[in-house]
């Protein structure tokens, strides 16, 4: 029972970080219909940027983390401006290929700069521990869950209530109508990319704090797919729930099934769950069906 709780709680923590990363993916998909295959590589770059500021430049976390986010935002804007904006109006499939190319570029640059050895991530968070139902939860998991949770709530409120949030939802819903009321949709797209890069970087840092970082961190991008498809590609609450489900599933299957049937189950379980759910709900848990009225 304790083992189960342990896996459950750390699964929730991991899942909330997945949700944060997936949020960026959903945002881009929602506003531009682009499937961003580089979301995992943005996580990779974010984590290593933080590593560079912390370990290589020796900056304190309070300075290194905001700097990392700033770098990520600038990277997001730059990518949108240089790679995506020229593709405006091109077929979606061509644009998706561009994001694949971007993934390659980011991964290559990271490898060139930091090499492909494991890097221990420095302790960035003050010691913190909590015992829940008799289960001790390690500090980095707590911090990860806490920070990801706060960010998810903040973004949800931002999209619901702020002027920019309304503009982003409007542009995602009906681009021509958004243009007609004066929304500069190119700026909305740019903002989506900036936010996507920022949450990816933050996710990378939180994952790094839990584990070591290496060049395989980009593979997190693959995990984003079951998360967002589960939740419905264009739903933010869906991404959050999807993230939590995948995080927990992964941990439980890793803890309970893997010892019996051997390796790999942990990685496969999310996709099995995904298939099952899609059979029942083809739009994902929260995805929008087109509203049809005559």
């Amino acid at each position: 029972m304790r083992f189960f709780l342990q896996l459950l709680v750390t699964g929730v923590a991991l899942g909330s970080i997945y949700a944060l990363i997936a949020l960026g993916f959903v945002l881009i998909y929602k506003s531009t219909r682009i499937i961003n295959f580089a979301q995992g590589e943005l996580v990779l770059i974010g984590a290593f940027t933080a590593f560079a500021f912390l370990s290589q430049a020796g900056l304190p976390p309070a300075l290194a983390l905001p700097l990392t986010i700033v770098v990520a935002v600038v990277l997001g804007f730059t990518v949108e401006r240089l790679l995506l904006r020229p593709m405006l109006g091109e077929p979606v499939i061509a644009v998706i290929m561009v994001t694949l190319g971007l993934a390659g570029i980011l991964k290559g640059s990271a490898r060139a700069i930091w090499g492909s050895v494991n890097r221990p991530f420095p302790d960035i968070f003050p010691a913190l521990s909590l015992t829940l139902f008799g289960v001790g939860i390690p500090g980095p998991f707590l911090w990860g869950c806490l920070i990801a949770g706060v960010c998810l709530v903040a973004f949800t409120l931002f999209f619901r209530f702020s002027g920019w949030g309304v503009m982003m939802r409007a542009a995602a819903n009906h681009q021509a109508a958004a243009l007609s009321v004066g929304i500069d949709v190119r700026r909305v797209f740019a903002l989506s990319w900036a936010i996507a890069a920022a949450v990816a970087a933050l996710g990378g840092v939180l994952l790094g704090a839990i584990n070591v970082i290496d060049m395989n961190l980009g593979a997190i991008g693959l995990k984003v797919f079951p998360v967002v498809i589960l939740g419905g590609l264009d739903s933010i609450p869906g991404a959050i729930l999807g993230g939590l489900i995948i995080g927990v599933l992964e941990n439980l299957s890793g803890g309970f099934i893997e010892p019996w049937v051997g390796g790999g189950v942990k990685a496969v379980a999310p996709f099995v769950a995904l298939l099952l759910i899609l059979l029942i709900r083809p739009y994902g848990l929260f995805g929008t069906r087109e509203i049809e009225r005559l």
Partner: protein
Amino acid sequence: MLLEINNLEVLYNEVVLVLKGLSLAVPEGRIVALLGSNGAGKTTTLRAVSGLLKHENGAVTQGTITYQGARIEGRPAHEIVRRGIVQVMEGRGVFDELTVEDNLRAGLAVRGGGRRAAGELETAFGYFPVLKARRRQVAGYLSGGEQQMLVIGRALMTRPALLLLDEPSLGLAPLVVGELFRIIQRINREAGVSILLVEQNAQMALTIADHGYVMEGGRIMLDGPARELQDNRNVREFYLGLTEQGALKSYRDVKHYVRRKRWFSS
């Protein structure tokens, strides 16, 4: 003149020439009707003014559009909205996944508002009380008439000086059309918003307009005070009474050739 279009040419996809030297003007504070059969280029004219042309892969290749003394052809849509021109697109175009209130707030967003929202929304509710009752409802489930009211209300949120309306009566029951046109007239009189009104329902349009233009094949064929156009034999014959039903529209298209000839002789 608030808006002056001079000798305008518009090309879609770099090959299809749709406007072939169109000229018209909208005086400050007036309602101007722009009439014409399907495919004449009415929507294209509005898009050229509002900057939405680019989104449709179209471009102004010749001529000028002057608004409040400044040339605006080819400017991006968001800049034109900021200058005070807003287009209400044909076929409504509500944000169907957003609530009524968020639709209206989207119109406010360009003015940097989220905060002042409450007071501003009252402007729209003043003209369209039904929107207030439905403010929390998702717009996709509104009736056709309510959606039309919503998009006009949303456009008003940008505080326009010039409103471009594209077939607001499309698909609405006659009773609703009457109500809608009375409100359009009120918007013009009470808020002093000038209006360029594209309509198939020529009878209705000419009743509230001060001036009317009739276009055909990308050019203006005829124009005059609305009262005079209502009396014009050709306009009566081909627009008034004949446009009410869809079935007759296709009949009109068959008669295209004959009609063309008559326009020239009128």
